[in-house]
């Protein structure tokens, strides 16, 4: 082979590598971080090509689905669990229901047209599955479509429910309030002619910009952060904003779910500033935010009425309204996934580490580490 042809092939290969490196789409490459759901001393983890069930006591693997991962299905949205099912969506368009005990597949729902970035919600036997095709799908526990609601943009947030309504925050800037279920008479004709479409929400609220984080609900108030760095407290009965708090840095987006303690709301932004505001009126509890030095993407948790957060540089710390942080531990890993708390352990899912999951006690001591077997 002469030199020119050899050079041409090398140049083509370099171009291929460069262009491939530029693209982070498709199921072939990581485009998100792991998602975990803790329930009854079991951790259900969606990461890459497989879903894992781990015993939170000791970190042992209970089952994984599928037994051999395939690049066709990528799982990142945290699974949702009921008494018998694990519901998890993938990055193509498939929602899976797995047997909670052994991970066997029970059904698939493939009507959606895009990926599942948000977790589903299981409530009274109904699966509410938000998809990035802009629909929220409501299914019975056999995977049959009951109805669907169309937002005006992708849905990246897990819905919430109370006794009366379902709450969906969307990338289209809106909070939608829907009924928990609809009779056929209340539904409009869908594309295929079937009566499955919810034509109007009960009410909605414009939040100004997109919501990529999960909201949280307590005592009739919904707390949610937006990509332009505003946290809203919305009174669901009065259908109005109780207060809103804008972070100091312009457009420092909020990725984590606000953490609620008895008197305060804690939230971090992507610039690494942590804020504490009064739960009642949204006034700042600190004269300036606590600067962690690394972005706060992961959702925190409440442990003993203190907020516990993980910064993206691996530092895990607790803090209360007195602004005296206590570093529990620092992992050599990037952390974007929400923290979990179960069985007295803080469960951490690093995005870049050999360990897939780590559990630490409330003093920061490592309890166990789960390393995936190859």
């Amino acid at each position, binding site marked *: 082979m002469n030199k020119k042809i050899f050079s041409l092939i090398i140049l*083509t290969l370099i171009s291929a590598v460069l262009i491939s490196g530029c693209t982070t789409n498709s199921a072939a490459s990581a485009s*998100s971080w792991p998602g975990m759901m803790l329930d009854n001393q079991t951790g259900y983890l969606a990461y890459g090509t497989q879903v894992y069930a781990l015993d939170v006591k000791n970190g042992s693997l209970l089952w994984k689905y599928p037994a051999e991962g395939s690049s066709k299905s990528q799982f990142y949205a945290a699974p949702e669990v009921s008494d018998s099912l694990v519901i998890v969506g993938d990055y193509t368009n498939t929602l899976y229901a797995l047997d909670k005990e052994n991970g066997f597949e029970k059904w698939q729902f493939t009507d959606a047209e*895009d990926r599942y970035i948000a977790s589903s919600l299981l409530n009274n036997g109904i699966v509410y599955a938000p998809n990035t095709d802009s629909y929220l799908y409501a299914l019975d526990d056999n995977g049959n479509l009951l109805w669907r609601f169309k937002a005006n943009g992708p849905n990246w947030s897990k819905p919430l429910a109370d006794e009366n309504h379902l709450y969906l925050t969307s990338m289209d800037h809106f909070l939608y309030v829907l009924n928990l279920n609809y009779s056929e008479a209340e539904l409009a004709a869908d594309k295929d002619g079937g009566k499955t479409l919810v034509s109007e929400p009960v009410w909605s609220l414009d939040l100004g910009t997109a919501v990529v984080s999960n909201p949280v609900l307590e005592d009739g108030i919904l707390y949610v952060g937006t990509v332009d760095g505003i946290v809203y407290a919305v009174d669901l009965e009065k259908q109005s904003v109780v207060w809103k708090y804008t972070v100091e840095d*312009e457009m420092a987006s909020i990725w984590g779910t606000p953490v609620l303690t008895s008197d305060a709301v804690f939230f971090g932004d992507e610039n690494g500033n942590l804020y504490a505001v009064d739960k009642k009126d949204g006034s700042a509890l600190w004269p300036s935010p606590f600067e962690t030095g690394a972005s706060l993407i992961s959702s925190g948790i409440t442990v003993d009425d203190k907020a516990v957060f993980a910064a993206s540089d691996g530092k895990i710390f607790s803090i209360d309204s007195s602004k005296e942080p206590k570093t529990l531990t620092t992992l050599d890993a990037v952390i974007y996934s929400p923290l979990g708390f179960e069985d007295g352990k803080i469960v951490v899912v690093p995005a870049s580490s050999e360990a897939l999951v780590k559990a630490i006690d409330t003093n920061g001591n490592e309890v166990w580490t789960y390393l995936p077997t190859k």
Partner: protein
Amino acid sequence: MWDTIIIKPFIAGLLFIYDMIGQNFGIAIILFTVVIKAITHPLTVKQIKSSKAMQDLQTDKDWLEMQKKYKNDRDRLAQEQMKLYKEKGISPFASCLPTLIQFPIIIGLYQSIIQTMGNAPLQMLNLIPKITPLLSNVFSFLPGLQEPISLIPLQNHFLWMNLGQPERVYIPGISFGIPLLAIFVVITSFLQTKLMATPSSDPQSQQMTGMMNLYMPILMGWFAYSFASGLALYFVASNVITIIQYAVLGKLNFSNLKRKKKVEVVK
């Protein structure tokens, strides 16, 4: 550095066009490609001229004699070639330099399109910090434009495509999706490489051109098949615009499409 010089301005440009034209990301990609091609047009012209000069040199009497005379002395041949370049006022790197300058622009364009689509959390996490308050201030000077941050998420639907997903067309009765856009990419890439190739009497160059004509369309088609259709749309737009650009400059070689005739000419 890369983000500051290339990615941020490109994302700003894409968002600006997207906002101006009523929030259609498909048209924004096409128009942005036109703008980038227009900006780099002088470089393209320079590259074409330099390539032509190099090509003409290869039929020059002095050049041919030199090749014969020093065919067994490569060092001397190189020295004599450099002398001749100087005499004729040709820089052998003049045709490479515009390509080298354009290469990071093309890579930056890919990256900014993918990042601006922000159709997965990691992409979005990369995108939002690039929509800085400075960009917001620039937008605020222009009436009718929305705050850049409020443009998120971009409307990814264009014609039948979801620009954030690989494109497939499903036809009733056929169990698999047809990658129509990837087929367009292969066709336009083939036409582009074929029409732009300059005829050469050198068998090595002919072999190289033949390989380029075969491999480049396949490679581009594979990218278009595998990755987001927004990227494939850019490939098609870029190929078509490049063909038009060469046509306007009168540099398309339609004779390259007639394979048999070309072989006869070479003989």
